[in-house]
Every structure is written in C-alpha cells, then in structure tokens.
C-alpha cells in the first residue's frame, strides 16, 4: 500500500459526469447511500404489507374499500381473499428478509463505513461494487413486478417450500408467473450479494491502512467481514436451489417433485424428486442468512455502546471470537427448522444439541455488552438508546430460540406464532434497531448534518414499546397452539381465546408504524435543515471520525491515515481527553493490548 506506484494510482478526482458520479457511481459512499435508500423504499413497502396482514387478522369482516380499488381481484368487494392474504405474507417476508435486512446492514452501512474504518480510499473492486448494487436493484424491480402479473404475487411463504412452489398455478393462484418472478428475483439477489461479499472480504484483507492490524479493527468491521464470509458460502447454495426449482417449474425436471402427485384432480408428470431436499438447501442458506442480518447490528451495538458508555468494549477478543463462533456454528444448525419435516430423528437429535450450543456465543455477547455498560458513564444519545434497545430485544428474542431449539418442544411450537414472535423480535426488530442506531450514529458523517435528538428519542421510545407489544404476545398465541400463516383462526375452537391478542397486536402494529413518521420527518428535516455536524460529534475513536463530515471523495485529505491505537480506547487513565483516536500519536509508554 505504500509503494510509490500504488499510491500514485490512488489519486483520483471525482468524475464530473453526473451519471458516473451519482447514479452508476463507483464511490463506495454513494453506493452505500444507494443501498440504504433501496432498503428504506423496501421497508416502506414491507410495512404496508404487514398492516394489511394485521388488519385481516384483527378485523376479518371489515370492508377494505381503498384496498379493493388497488387490488380488485384480491380484495373483491372489500373482502381480503385467502390467497391475497397469503401473497401479502409471502411478499412481506421476502422483501423484508432480502431487500431490507440483508441490504441495509451490509450493503448500506457496510459499504459506506468499512473502507473508511480501515483507512482505505475505496472498496477493492469499485466497479464490482457498482454492479452489485445495480444487480440488487434489478432484483427488487423483479420482485415488485410479481404484484402486478396475472394471478398476483406468490403465496408459498418466503421459504417457498415445494411441491407447492414447484407445480404452478394448479397448486394455488400466484404460483404461476408470480412464483417464477420470485425465483428470478431471488437468484438475481444472490448474485448481487455474492459480488458484494467478495468485495468486502478482499477489502478487509487487502486494504487496511498502516497500523490497522486485525486486532485493531473496530467490531463493526469484524462483523461485516464475517457477514461477508457467511454470504459468500451460503448465497451460492440458495442460487443453486433456485435454479433447480426454476428448472422443475419450466423445464420438466424433477429435483423437488416426487412421483405420483395428483393436484386438483390432475396427475402430475414428474417423478424422483424430494421436497425435503429443498428444505435442506434453503436452510443451509437460511440459517446463516439470519446471522447475515444481525451480525452487523451486533457490531454496531458493540461500537456504539463503547462510544457512549465511554469505555472500551468489554472483552474485545471474546467478542471477535464470539462473532466467529456464531458464524461457524451457524452453518451446522440449519436442521432446527426441519425437526418435523420427516428428516431422520437421529439427525434431529444432533441438530438440537448443536443449536443450543450456539446459544453460548450469543450469551457471551450479551454478557460483554452488559460488561461494557458496567462502570461506564452513559451518554443517552439517540444512537445509544437504540443500541440499548437492541440488547434488550436480543435477549428476549434469543431466549425464544432456547425453546425452539429443543426438538421435543418444537414438536408443539413449530409453525406456530411462537416462531413468528421469536424471529421477529430478533431478526426483525433487533436487527432493525441496530440499523436505527447506526443511522442516528453515522448520519452526521454521511450527510454532514445532525439529526434532531429530541425527535430521535421520541421515535425510539414509541418504537421500543410498540414492537414489544406486537411480538411478545405472539409467543402467547403460539403457546395456545395458533398455527402461523392462517388467514382466519376463528374456525377452530382451541383458538377461541385468541381474538383479544390478535386485536392487541394489530393496534400495536398500527401504533408502531405510525411512530415511524417521526423518523421520516426527522430524516427530511435533518437532511435539509439539520445543524452542521463537526468532524467528530460523538468524541469517537475510529477512523471515520478522523476525516471531514461528509468525507471527501477519497475519504481522507492528504495521505492515508496511520493507526497507532486500538479501536476502543475510552477513558484511558492518564490521557487528557476521555478518548484516544486511532490516529492519535502513539503514547510515550504504549498502552499494551491495542
């Protein structure tokens, strides 16, 4: 990195062509913001879908006039049809998991911050980076198109289990063109994520600035790096599975379709495939994917807790180890989604034990977050509040996993609302809390202006209460035995007592979504009128705070920064300020451990 030749090659000026600078940009900062905006658009769509779902569950007899104007078939005469309901569930899950929880933490914040935090001028492969965004964007357009084709959006859930997903419209409406588009979209998404993952790995390994040893990297960088490794190993499997499913549907192959099927009175001309094979492939991707969604949130939480508790991260090494352990073990637990799938009971036994073992690194992280707060001096900034909320939600959601990970208990809870409550708390909202924390923390760096703290805190407290009121009661529904993906539970006597919970959850959902208006207002306000941000508004230590807000085109004026300190030297005894930036001159008696 320091040879004359390479250095010279790095001196670039921004392209003066508008398209090259802002649209098909190769600047990781622009691409990061593009990803972030894509995730914002996607989350708005996903949120509207969730309101439709919740409205149906609490008010099944209501006349949804407005909706019937937009979807005259699915909501004919104001009544939501069962297939329309399931389409909403499927699209909500797909859009949220892929286009929000995978794009914002990784594509958005990872892209923007990773190169700066390691002192690089850009990603290792800027053109690839641009491609990875636009490929992902294309995937989003394709999935959105599924709403508007004949038969509507697919209804098989975000997990798309065959044969339901493999047989076409005969199996249910939406399983025709809509399902094809779903697979194509996900396949495109996989390609985009792969390109991104390669770039993250190469950048972290190759472009660290002088002095940025691995153990001086902020935990955010460790999290993005591990996430990229998970993505690199898991997305190809989903891509392959998607291609096989597409072939089954359109080319007459039978990877997932066994012989002798009769659907709607019609014999299906396929033989030899296995529906369970899809589940293995899907969850081999799917479990690592849940960590892809949350690891960056864990990284941001560690980073922000240390910053605003004014303390080093408690057990930095253990945190790095835990991130790795989670990543590694995460590849050996996929079968916990399949305890009742028909898989061998011995396999189920093994998966159960490994799954509970993964609770250990998760617990280490929680203990160390609490340890970071212990003896600190907590500055209650908005970013800090979201991170504290993250810890609380991570505990609540993670403990649900301790029930589900026991195969014997999962016999009862599988495919009930208990699962829905578990994964929304942890993967849905905890990950989103991580992203909100990151937004409030890094917005000043990215846009050069501060968000309004009062609005931010209001937004936080309303959301924190709201999401708990939505997803904790869902565990109760699951305990009563309420199956998930039910259009209407009122047919069943054993679900007779669940109306009250459904109504409560729906009101809480409307409340929570409304509270997000505060955020949108804050964004617009902050972006246009917010107070000018100084270079380092939070007295932080990492490299992004050692450059201007926003950073210049090449991230750092002049030479690349040189790192002399670990990432979390807060409240170091004997130093004048209560933080030592990574770029600060080395102390005379170097503090060991960095």
């Amino acid at each position, binding site marked *: 990195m320091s040879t004359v030749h390479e250095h010279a090659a790095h001196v670039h000026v921004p392209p003066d062509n508008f398209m090259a600078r802002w649209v098909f940009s190769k600047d990781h900062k622009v691409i990061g913001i593009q990803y972030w905006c894509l995730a914002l658009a996607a989350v708005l769509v996903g949120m509207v879908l969730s309101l439709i779902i919740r409205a149906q569950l609490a008010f099944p007899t209501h006349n949804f006039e407005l909706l019937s104007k937009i979807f005259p078939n699915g909501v004919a005469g104001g009544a939501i049809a069962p297939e329309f309901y399931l389409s909403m569930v499927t699209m909500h899950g797909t859009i949220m998991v892929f286009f929000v929880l995978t794009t914002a933490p990784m594509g958005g914040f990872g892209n923007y911050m990773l190169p700066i935090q390691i002192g690089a001028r850009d990603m290792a492969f800027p053109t690839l980076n641009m491609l990875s965004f636009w490929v992902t964007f294309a995937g989003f357009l394709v999935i959105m198109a599924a709403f508007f084709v004949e038969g509507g959006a697919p*209804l098989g859930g975000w997990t798309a289990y065959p044969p339901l997903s493999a047989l076409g419209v005969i199996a249910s409406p939406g399983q025709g063109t809509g399902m094809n588009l779903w697979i194509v979209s996900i396949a495109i998404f996989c390609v985009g994520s792969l390109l991104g993952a390669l770039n993250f790995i190469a950048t972290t390994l190759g472009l660290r600035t002088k002095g940025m040893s691995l153990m001086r990297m902020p935990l955010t960088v460790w999290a993005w790096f591990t996430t990229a490794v998970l993505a690199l190993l898991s997305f190809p499997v989903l891509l392959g599975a998607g291609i096989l499913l597409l072939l089954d549907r359109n080319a007459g192959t039978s990877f997932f379709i066994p012989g002798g099927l009769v659907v709607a009175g019609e014999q299906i001309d396929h033989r030899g495939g296995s529906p369970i094979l899809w589940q293995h492939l899907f969850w081999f991707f799917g479990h690592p994917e849940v960590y892809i969604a949350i690891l960056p949130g864990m990284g941001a939480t560690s980073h922000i807790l240390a910053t605003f508790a004014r303390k080093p991260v408690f057990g930095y090494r253990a945190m790095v180890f835990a991130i790795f352990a989670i990543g590694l073990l995460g590849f050996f637990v996929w079968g916990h989604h399949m305890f009742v799938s028909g898989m061998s009971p011995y396999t189920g036994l093994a998966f159960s034990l490994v799954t*509970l073992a993964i609770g250990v690194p998760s*617990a280490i992280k929680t203990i160390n977050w609490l340890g970071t707060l212990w003896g600190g001096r*907590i500055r209650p900034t908005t970013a800090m509040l979201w991170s504290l909320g993250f810890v609380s939600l991570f505990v609540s959601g993670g403990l649900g996993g301790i029930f589900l990970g026991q195969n014997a208990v999962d016999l009862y809870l599988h495919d009930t609302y208990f699962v829905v409550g578990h994964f929304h708390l942890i993967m849905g909202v905890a990950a989103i809390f991580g992203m909100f924390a990151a937004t409030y923390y890094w917005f000043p760096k990215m846009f050069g202006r501060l968000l309004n703290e009062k609005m931010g805190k209001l937004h936080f407290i309303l959301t924190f209460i709201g999401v708990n009121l939505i997803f*904790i009661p869902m565990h109760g529904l699951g305990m*009563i035995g309420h199956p998930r993906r039910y259009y*209407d539970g009122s047919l069943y006597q054993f679900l007779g007592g669940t109306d009250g919970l459904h109504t409560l959850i729906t009101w809480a959902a409307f409340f929570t979504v409304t509270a997000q208006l505060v955020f949108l207002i804050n964004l617009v306000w902050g972006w246009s009128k917010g107070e000018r941000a100084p270079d380092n508004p939070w007295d932080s230590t990492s490299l992004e705070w050692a450059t201007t807000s926003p950073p210049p085109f090449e991230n750092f004026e002049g030479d690349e920064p040189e790192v002399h300190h670990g990432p979390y030297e807060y409240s170091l005894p004997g130093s004048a300020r209560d933080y030592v930036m990574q770029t600060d001159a080395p102390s005379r008696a170097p503090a060991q451990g960095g």
Partner: protein
Amino acid sequence: MVFLLAMSIWLVTAISVWLLIDAKGQMPVAISDLARSIDSQFMFTLVITGVVFVLAQGLLGWFILKYRDRPGARARFVEGNTTVEIGGAVVIGIIFVGLAVAAQNVWARLHLNEGPADQVVVEITGEQFAWNIRYPGPDGQFGRTLPELYDATNNPMGIVPDDPAGQDDIVVLNTLAVPVNRPVELRLGSKDVLHGFFMPVLRIKQDTVPGMRIPLRFVAEETGNYEIACAELCGLGHYRMRGFLQVMEEPEFRSWLVEQAAQ
C-alpha cells in the same frame, strides 16, 4: 430519558412474564403422557429462561440508571474480565446444552421406539384441503393404492379394486377416531403438497410429505372430541384444513368402525 428507558425495559419484562404465564393457562388440555412430558419440558424451559430473562433485562435497566452520565464521574477503564467471560460462558453453556440433552428423552420416546404388535394403525393422507383417513379393516392389511385411481367421491385413496387386502379398507374424511389408552401408529403421507398434521392436545405435529410415509405414534388417554389443524402452508385453503380427533372407549370405537365400513 434514561429513566423512561429503564422503566420501559422493566415494564416490558414484567408484562412479558405475566403474558406468558397467562398464555400457559390457556394452552389446550394435554391428553397423553408424552404431551404432559412435553409440557413439563416446556415449563422447565420457561422457568429457566424466565430467570435468565428477568436477570438480563433487570441488570440492563439497572446499569442504564446507575451508570448514567453524572457530573464529575469518570468511566472505569476495564477492558474485560476473563473470569466473568469464561465463567459466564461455561454456566450458560451447561444450562442451554443441559436443556437440549433433557429434551432428548422425550424425543426418543416419540421417535426411537417401535410400537407394540397390537397397535392401531391408521394411514393419513393429506390433500388440498382435507385429510383422508384410512383404516385397514378386519384383515389388518392396507390394500395397494394407485394415484391414477383417485376418485373424490367413490375411491378417494385410489385403492386397487382387485387387491383382496383393500376390499375391507375403511376411508373417512377428516375424522380420526382412536380407542382410548391404546397405542396408535399413524402413517402420514400426502397426495399433492406438504401439509402438517397437528394435534394440539397431543402436543405433536408432523409434516406430511408426498412420496413418503412417516410414522407418528401416540397413546390418547382421555376420551373426547378434539381438533386437528394443518400446520404446514399448503395453499389458499390452509387455514380451513380442519380435522377431528375422536378418542373413544374401545367398544364404541369398534362400532364406529363397523358403521363407517357400512357407508
């Protein structure tokens, strides 16, 4: 704000505990020994995770209050504590993995034992959106079936007419009748897509997979009429794929079979 947050965390914790205890009271009755074992494993887990939950959330709220920014205070410079970290991991590891090990007893009782020779065998075949329930009849043998012969009104299971074993087979729709206190073995399958055969009062479910016959064993110990639900998304009628589990006294069960055979 820190007060508000700490209070919210504690409030949420309290409400969660109350809600889950309340829901525990609303669970369907458990009518088998295995179901009660699953319930006690659930309860055991609820208590243990409940303690961890209250401890972690309580500590979080307390730290937020205690270590809020106070004039003149300086944060303690602590980079970690190996004893706490390793000790915590070991304790948590023992608790979590211990729970998983304890669960294997129940799992093994369900899955790793063969049923006795005199068990009642019933074949369940899901289709969009109903359960075909077949009894082997007096000969105790299921007749061969062929998908080409499926006929919703006359021969829903496609039993081959010239197979003697199939002559006396009894096929009913959506009602699974079983004798009380006798081992039952279901053989689950599907005609079309995945379904999930879920009997809440027995606390068990099993996906039905086309191309496979998956055994599921139970002993129901209380007579009565209970519900069966579909747990695996199978299409637009998933929510109304309802069945009934009728647990009868042995003589009643026999006459029920005779009655069904006559139809």
